[in-house]
């Protein structure tokens, strides 16, 4: 009997409170401390939505991250930020991280966030996301003396430190995002470098679950072979974007002994996803990887590409379908919020 659980892939969009707060913080009109308080309020909303929708792991929404690279690039010496460039095929731009040398963390991004989120997230687990070192190099610019793959390795070291401290502070799920691996230009060597970097980061995650996430499209088979060589516990694939190719990949290559997270709820569009489609994807994926005892369901990408209202709706749909699937397929849904309550009220 398979277990099913749900967790959104990554960050949320900003509602009005977060928008105004970020604008005022960046312009200096708001004191950093006040800004933090306001952002915490905005974040509580998306945490609450995840909990109420039955997510097994929750994120803080990353509402203050202008893009996935930014908080890390800003916290590292030898990295500066350049002009804006389009992020895959979205009408969304990130600032190019430019590496002048080995990144040296001046402060840590994740541990403080995990500490803040842990209480709020109860009884769900805290999930943290880090940018994949390969994606960061490929979408950034390398002005250092290091080769690209050497730089990937150095970034992995910096992120490993983040992850170790995040887990020490209570994170139970670490996701490494390598969307670049779905790019037609990614090579097998790239994939090997990304997989090794992910293994390295995962080593520091202790008992936490670790996932290597590839999205925006399906990776090519030779890329996928390297991905499943990575020493992470889970592989997270975007199924909704090109279902036939994703399922084909699983049929052809299996899961390589990894657990699987399937991106089945379309996070780039605003229509309600069809339950029968999601059901079909999951049945086919389970059929391709029969050894799986549990499967995670997620969104195809981060939810920050749709307006807040729809991101909340998609979160709800993700939870709802996970529960329905478990019932439909004779499995069990892992939903922390409906589990037997701990005796919090005692004393």
């Amino acid at each position, binding site marked *: 009997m398979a277990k099913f659980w749900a967790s959104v892939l990554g960050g949320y969009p900003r509602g009005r409170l977060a928008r105004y707060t970020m604008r005022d913080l960046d312009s200096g009109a708001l004191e950093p401390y006040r800004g933090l308080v306001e952002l915490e309020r905005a974040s509580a909303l998306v945490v609450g939505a995840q909990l109420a929708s039955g997510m097994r792991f929750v994120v803080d929404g990353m509402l203050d991250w202008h893009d996935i690279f930014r908080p890390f690039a800003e916290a590292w010496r030898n990295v500066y930020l350049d002009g804006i460039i389009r992020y895959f095929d979205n009408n969304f731009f990130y600032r190019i991280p430019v590496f002048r040398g080995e990144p040296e963390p001046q402060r840590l991004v994740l541990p403080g966030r995990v500490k803040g989120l842990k209480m709020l997230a109860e009884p769900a687990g805290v999930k943290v996301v880090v940018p994949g070192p390969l994606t960061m190099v490929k979408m950034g610019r390398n002005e250092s003396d290091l080769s690209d793959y050497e730089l990937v390795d150095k970034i992995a070291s910096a992120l490993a430190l983040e992850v170790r401290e995040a887990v020490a502070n209570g994170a139970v799920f670490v996701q490494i995002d390598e969307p670049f691996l779905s790019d037609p230009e990614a090579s097998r060597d790239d994939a090997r470098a990304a997989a090794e970097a992910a293994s390295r980061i995962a080593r520091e995650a202790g008992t936490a679950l670790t996932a290597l996430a590839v999205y925006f499209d399906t990776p090519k088979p030779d890329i996928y072979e390297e991905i499943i060589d990575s020493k992470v516990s889970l592989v997270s694939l975007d199924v909704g974007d090109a279902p036939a190719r994703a399922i084909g990949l699983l049929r052809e290559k299996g899961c390589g002994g990894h657990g699987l997270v399937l991106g089945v709820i379309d996070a780039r569009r605003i229509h309600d996803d069809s339950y029968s489609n999601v059901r079909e994807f999951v049945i086919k994926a389970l059929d391709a990887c029969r050894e799986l005892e549990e499967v995670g369901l997620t969104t195809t990408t981060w939810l*920050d590409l749709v307006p*807040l209202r729809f991101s909340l709706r998609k979160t709800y749909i993700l939870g709802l379908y996970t529960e329905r699937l478990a019932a439909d397929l004779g499995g069990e849904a892992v939903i922390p919020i409906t589990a037997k309550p701990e005796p919090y009220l005692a004393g």
Partner: protein
Amino acid sequence: MAAYTVPKAFPTTVVGSYPKLPSAREALRRQRKGGISEEEFKKLVREAIRGVIEDYIWAGVDILSDGEQSREDMVVYFAERLRGYAPGEWVRIFDNVYFRKPIIVDKVEWVSPMALDDWEYARSISGGRPVKVILTGPYTMLEWSFDLHYGDRREAILDLARVIRREVDEYLAKGAEYVQIDEPALSTRPWREEAELAGEALEVIFRGVSAKRIVHICFGRIERILPYILDYPVDQFDLEFKNSDFRLLPYLKEYGYDKELGYGVVDVHSLQVESVEEIKKAIDDLMKLDIIGPEKVYIDPDCGLKRLPREIAREKLKNMVEAARLARREWAGEE
């Protein structure tokens, strides 16, 4: 209208948008709050267009635009004026910049001219310089909207193409000489099927059009899409070069490029004003590759100038025009 002669070699132009001048900003702000009459809005926008045209003429640009002063966003502006679209909610573009990503909720239909007024006004004060018609293309309109109606991308894009063609007809009837369709989204999915889809839409827009037909594409993997678009029914591709360090140049040679080229030589994301020498060198580099002659090369910025401070935009254009003048003398013996 006074006569103006566009130089035969290296004419200079702009891609479209210009920094919003204060009166345009005020018009848009009041429009958002719902506190402005159509008449007042037009008056404020015209004041801004006048400033834009003055800047272009000061810099010496040959083929102008209205500066897109009334367009808050290149997709939203048209979505608000078409039937079949519903207003969207905020989605981020970068940093603290957002747009209200519009939603297609029904079959899209043309209602009335969308950008004609601004274009006509710009033309009336351009001292005879031609003013380009600049419209957002169907592929980009769909990619940067949410679609709750069509489900089928081809069907949606072709309907949008028909709507845009209807708009183009308005300008043609008034003697438009240059029609530019902006398709920045095209470079983000550089695959054959996508290029063919956009090409089919351009057939609809440009069939039988005798004005100069231009497509603008920017910021993406243009070198990947290029081989699939060379037989588009257009006279000119207007492309970004400077921001990607001219890496596109050798591909033009490789693919035997022989259409006109809008050659983007000014970076619109950088506050650094390119020197005349730097721009001239970029033109020289293109000419040395011996791909197309000077009469097929239009000198312009990479993309719209809207994100730059006005002073910087002006200086960039001025240097660009001067570099084109020098190149004209050297490569075409023209003054």
